[in-house]
């Protein structure tokens, strides 16, 4: 199985410096299943990076490490701050994690309450909270939905609100787990436009290779708990051997 060598440090034109550094991260689930076997990854400010790989590659597991929900062996640094138990709350305000299923993310009855959860939990004064909610909803173009019940929204709308719930925390990095799953073509298109517009560093896991091609200059391929390729998207998508070896397909 020929595997492109991971490129550990890539500087893209728009990069300004390191936002996220992961060094040699290992993790096993309590039942003994080894999910991560030495992950190293750098994200620079402004990067938009796709994370692809077959089911069970460990993508979600890696993402759950980035704001300390899971705790593996290895080093994670955010804007120079090393992740540890003591600074978890601060780290969590810097990493905005959006889960695949927006229903998991939206647990409050109204959109406003949901978007306000993060800022409220951070102990901000009320005026700040309101300001943040307003601007987060504006960023995802859902200002009109402030008082709606989350429960009754369409999947595409829920997805946008889910992104707003982390934007309201002013994160340095946005980490999205399979954002386009289950969307119809129109909602998917509108999500792509939204992600393109957001001026924020992001790491996005997906099975949607066309999304990768359209949106992300850089792609990281994972399989079996390891990074097996990391480079320019156009190079990776040309490497048919690599793709089929890891259960992927050319768009």
């Amino acid at each position, binding site marked *: 199985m020929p595997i492109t060598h991971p490129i550990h440090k890539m500087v893209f034109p728009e990069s300004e410096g390191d936002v996220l550094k992961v060094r040699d991260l290992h993790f096993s*689930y*309590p*039942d003994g299943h080894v999910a991560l076997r030495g992950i190293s990854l750098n994200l620079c400010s402004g990067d938009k990076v796709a994370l692809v790989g077959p089911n069970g590659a460990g993508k979600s597991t890696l993402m*759950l490490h980035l*704001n300390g*929900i899971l705790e593996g062996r290895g080093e994670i640094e955010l804007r120079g701050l090393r992740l540890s138990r003591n600074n978890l*709350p*601060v780290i*969590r*305000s810097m*990493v905005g*994690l959006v*889960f695949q*299923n927006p*229903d*998991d*993310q*939206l*647990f*409050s*009855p109204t959109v406003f*309450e949901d978007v306000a*959860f*993060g800022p*409220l*939990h*951070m*102990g*901000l004064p009320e005026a700040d909270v309101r300001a943040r909610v307003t601007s987060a909803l504006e960023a995802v173009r859902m200002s009109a939905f402030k008082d709606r019940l989350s*429960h009754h929204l369409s999947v595409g709308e829920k997805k946008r609100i889910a992104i707003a*719930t*982390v934007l309201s*925390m002013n994160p340095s990095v946005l980490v999205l787990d399979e954002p386009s799953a289950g969307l119809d073509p129109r909602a998917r298109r509108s999500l792509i436009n939204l992600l393109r517009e957001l001026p924020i560093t992001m790491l996005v896991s997906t099975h949607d290779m066309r999304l990768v091609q359209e949106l992300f200059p850089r792609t990281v391929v994972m399989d079996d708990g390891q990074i097996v390729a990391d480079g320019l998207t156009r190079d990776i998508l040309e490497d048919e051997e690599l793709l089929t070896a890891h259960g992927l397909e050319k768009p």
Partner: protein
Amino acid sequence: MHSDAFDRYHHHDSALHRLDPRIKVVVAIAFILSNALLPDGAWMAFGLAWLFLILANALSDLGLGYTFRRSFIALPFALVAITVLFSVPGKPLSQFHFMMWDFTVTDAGLLRFISIVIRSWLSVQMAILLVAVTRFPDLIHAFEHLRVPAILTTIIAFLYRYLFVLTDEVMRLLRARQSRSAAAAGQRSGGGVLWRARVAGNMSGQLFLRSYERSDRIYNAMLARGYDGQLLTLNPHELHARDWAYALAAFLFILATQFVGWF
């Protein structure tokens, strides 16, 4: 999905695994009942019961230590029985004062306490062994055969099936909450107790709605396959001579334990 931790069943191909689930259930209950009937301080009988457990363990292919290790999880409950020490009349051993009450530890109380802990430890190990060698669906079938009303066993079957789906859902909800439980640098975070309780309540309400709607979809799926208010299943269990032999041996052993305990 990943909530394998919920499945206590261990896949092996031992004599005990192959035994008819009805026999296993009845013997386990008889054993637990027999423990409850033993008098305090019947050390010989306790020893016999332990021997029974060890024999069953040996038949199960799980390794002798399995139930023993698992049973420690249940042991903290024994502390609840501490009140027994003071409540049974007998010869005082020691005395102390706490708040507005006087407590006297008696010899009979101590005897009762030790007996209760041993008996309940034995019982817990048997229960652990039972679910470790019987798949839960088979256990449900066994209860069906033992005339537990069908509606209850059906609810339990559904509970078992959706336990995994819903606990996964809860895990994801909890993670989502956790990942947004942030603090600004140098700020105290968390909100008040009432607010936190409200968030937990909202999550429960959310989960409730989703479960309710899921049950609608399941109902549709059942209708689509001909459901008409009755749940039918094929029951693959048959009692063989071997099963009866094991049952007989177990009951004789348990009777012997009772005999030793009382005379």
